[in-house]
């Protein structure tokens, strides 16, 4: 009888420990609807990929959560038994931190923020390298010398992207300008459409954007102008006019993070310095408007035909330059950065001294506009 009791207790203990070490129920809190075909859609695609990959993993999600109410929804996920919770909007930051203090036994990870705790990590898949590569191509393709850019909000993330894009443009086309219009919404197709129409009226003939719908690509294609996709695969929306773009692979980060929790590497005690800032080299970002297609084949010839006299590489086609830079980014020991000094902002202030790169801190708080950007720039120093 006693033997049996010990056996049962031992079994229970193994069961509890085993389950504790293995089973993960991960909850995802999204700021938008999963059907937005932008930011939230991409996170949800990634969630489904990792969910299908591991049998020790179960996932749940809540969509369209208002930023001020994130704590209520975290409470709900904890009650449902989630032991890992991802919050995927910058505005969720303080709520997630407060919840992390209240639930010390739950692991939290917050996307795009900078506050951490022993049980709260941060993560971000950033695109500024890819925007720079797109800029190289845009600079080669414009005939009017005016490139249109539709931005959601004038925040450091977009300012970094537009500046990287413009630095690319100017590297191959020193007199071209990038004209910016803001729509003050992450997602509003009508606003994106009218902003694009306004840029067309001003003579722009190549388009790029940062907002959560394929609108800019569609409107540009109607007028037969090339454009660059953003975030989700948008090749199908304009097969003749989408040149390239940025694609995200959040699943690379989720996979790594969850696997390390599963293996016991990450615990509720050691996340205070865990910050994923993943770029091309880690596979979190991809160049292209369609998975596996860095450049639309229709634009290979024009890009090969546009040859520049590069200060570093001599005579080189933009097509070759794109892949040369791509390899420099993809190399594990990244050997080039778009913000390699000397870099002056559009007011002539030296922002990055010759030979220097920008620090992570200065990248995520960047407010200045690179030379060549035209248009309003709220908060410009």
């Amino acid at each position, binding site marked *: 009888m006693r033997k049996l009791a010990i056996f049962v207790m031992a079994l229970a203990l193994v069961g509890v420990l085993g389950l504790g070490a293995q089973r993960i129920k991960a909850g995802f809190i999204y700021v938008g*609807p*999963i*059907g*937005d*075909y932008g930011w939230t*859609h991409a996170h949800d695609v990634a969630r489904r990929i990792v969910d299908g990959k591991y049998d020790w993993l179960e996932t749940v999600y809540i969509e369209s959560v208002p930023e001020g109410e994130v704590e209520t929804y975290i409470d709900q996920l904890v009650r449902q038994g989630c032991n890992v919770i991802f919050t995927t909007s910058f505005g969720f930051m303080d709520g997630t931190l407060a919840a992390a203090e209240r639930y010390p036994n739950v692991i939290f990870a917050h996307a795009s923020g900078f506050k951490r705790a022993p049980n709260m990590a941060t993560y971000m898949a950033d695109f500024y390298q890819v925007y720079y590569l797109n800029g190289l191509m845009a600079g080669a393709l414009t005939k009017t010398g005016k490139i249109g850019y539709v931005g959601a909000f*004038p925040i450091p993330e977009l300012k970094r992207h537009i500046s990287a894009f413009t630095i690319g443009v100017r590297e191959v086309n020193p007199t071209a300008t990038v*004209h910016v*219009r*803001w*729509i*003050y*919404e992450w*997602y*509003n*197709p*009508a*606003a994106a*459409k*009218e*902003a694009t*129409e*306004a840029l067309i*009226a*001003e003579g722009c003939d190549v388009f790029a954007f940062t907002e959560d*719908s*394929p*609108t800019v690509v*569609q*409107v540009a294609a109607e007028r037969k102008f090339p454009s660059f996709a953003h975030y*989700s*695969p948008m090749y*199908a*929306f*304009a097969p003749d006019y989408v040149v390239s773009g940025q694609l995200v692979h959040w699943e690379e980060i989720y996979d790594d993070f969850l696997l390390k929790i599963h293996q016991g590497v990450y615990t509720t005690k050691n996340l205070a310095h865990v910050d994923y800032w993943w770029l091309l080299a880690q596979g979190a970002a991809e160049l292209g408007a369609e998975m596996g297609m860095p450049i639309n084949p229709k634009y290979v010839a024009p890009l090969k035909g546009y040859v520049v006299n590069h200060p570093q590489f001599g005579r080189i086609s933009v097509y070759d330059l794109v892949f040369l830079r791509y390899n420099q980014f993809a190399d594990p020991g990244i050997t080039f950065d778009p913000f390699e000094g000397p870099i002056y902002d559009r007011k002539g202030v030296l922002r990055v001294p010759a030979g220097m790169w920008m620090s992570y801190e200065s990248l995520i708080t960047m407010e200045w506009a690179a030379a060549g950007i*035209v*248009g*309003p720039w*709220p908060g410009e120093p």
Partner: protein
Amino acid sequence: MDWTSWLVGTVSRALAFGVPLLWGTLGEIYAERSGVVNLGVEGMMILGAYAGFAVAQTLGHPGWGLLAAAGVGALAALWHAFLTVTLRANQYVSGLALTLFGLGLAGLLGRGWEGRPLRAPLGAVAVPVLSDVPVLGPMLFRDQTILTYLGLLLAVVLWVVLFRTRWGIAIRSVGESPATADSLGISVARVRYLCVALGGVLAGVGGGYLSVAYRPAWTEGMTAGMGWIVIALTIFSAWDPLQAIWGAFFFGALYHLSFRLQAYVSPELLKMMPYAFAILVLAASGFGRARWRARAPGALGVPYVRGER
């Protein structure tokens, strides 16, 4: 600065952006003229946008899509009519519920439809001869779909019906004083059902225009608040179909200009402009001119119960 580019650009964009507003406003004018406020315009528009996209994509013709959008809009509106006319529920609550329900249902049904362009979009028609006239051609006759011209025609027809026919008198009297209309033998319920349903048809087409013509793709929440602008425009137009034309296209022009002018004026200020204008109009209509207030249907928002005063 090339003034023709500004004129042509602004007018042609005002028309293209104003179309869904015009259709929606015309519908809401009829519903409210019969005495029923329908705050479900946003919901009916998004359902129309979803149905329009799904059917046009499946059957391969934008016409079927727009027809489906009209049908779905009518169904949604009939639900509102049933609740508010037959069951005499609070019109504001029922309308808000319809908006929330429409946004939710369209989002749910739309899963898996996003991320694909529409294979059969409704294209712009270049009107023969007229589209080649300098300035006027590109301004009015090159970048518009058939729904721009149909909308204008519809506004005129609806104005004539409302102010020059017996049907119009019946509708207006039901909205003004349902008891009197009832005593004259007009069926208040039937008139209200018909007007609310017409409102749904037009809002549905307005939504369908967004997903089938304006930006031929489906994404969740793509109406992005247009239904609320329609509610404001209904008041702005003083419940007059002809004034709705100016309202919708003026708002369209302001909206487009808010992006065009960013090079010169602070974008935060411009972003406010169309909405600040709407608030101004509402304030003006509330304060001042008695004429405006007098135009509001007398029994607007009040359920009709025979024998009650």
